[in-house]
């Protein structure tokens, strides 16, 4: 079966759904960051598929550049917050914080 744009859309939709599940149900800091990066990479995959299939337009590539920059900023902010969290509560699990307090 020849692959088309629909296959890429299907994969990125499934990818987005499971990324959301990981982000919403995460208890560890590491898993939150992984879920966030999965969400961003699903959008990158979708945009790159559209950009590649429509005669390779450069605007799509620039959009991917910008999304990558936003993703990097989010992840670095998350790392800073989680380092602070670890230094204060001495744990990387969120459900243990309520027990400490």
């Amino acid at each position, binding site marked *: 079966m020849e692959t088309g744009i629909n296959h890429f859309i299907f994969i990125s*939709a499934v990818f987005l759904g499971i990324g959301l599940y990981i982000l919403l149900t995460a208890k560890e800091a590491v898993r939150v960051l992984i879920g966030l990066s999965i969400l961003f990479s699903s959008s990158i995959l979708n945009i790159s598929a559209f950009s590649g299939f429509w005669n390779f337009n450069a605007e799509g590539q620039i959009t991917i550049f*910008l999304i990558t920059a936003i993703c990097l900023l989010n992840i670095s902010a998350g790392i800073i917050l989680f380092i602070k969290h670890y230094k204060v509560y001495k744990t990387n699990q969120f459900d243990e914080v309520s027990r400490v307090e």
Partner: protein
Amino acid sequence: MHDILFYIFAAVILLSVMRIAFISNVKSSLKSFAYLLSGIFGLLIITNSQLFSLLICLLLLMIFFTAFLLKNKINEYLIIDTGATLKTNIFPALVISLLTAILASLFGNTRWQMINIDYSLNSFTMIFTKYLPFILAISLLFSVMIPVLFRIVRLSGVKS
């Protein structure tokens, strides 16, 4: 050839994402995340975005080297509960699977205009076009942003 590669990389991505979602061990989640990045690397090559696949390849190498160099620190940070049992969160799983089904069925069944990928044009030929000023501006932004981020992360670690 590209079709077979697409199915292989899609299988790698889906398996590793399922592994991240449904395995409680954080270390194996991180390993699966590396496999996931390699799957995305492959799919980006298929969709003719070689420049970004190269970036992801560099990111993968960076993650592996950091994990190797900071092995002891990571072991200290990751609290591994070996007796943890899997807790399925049924409500979020139901809502999200509904959302995914709607997204996949709506956009996956749309009759998109089908144009075959032209492999003579790619990310590298994009560099010397009218978009050169944008690319220069973005690369300058990246070159400033990344050292500043490293600096901020280091300072936030030292202060408290």
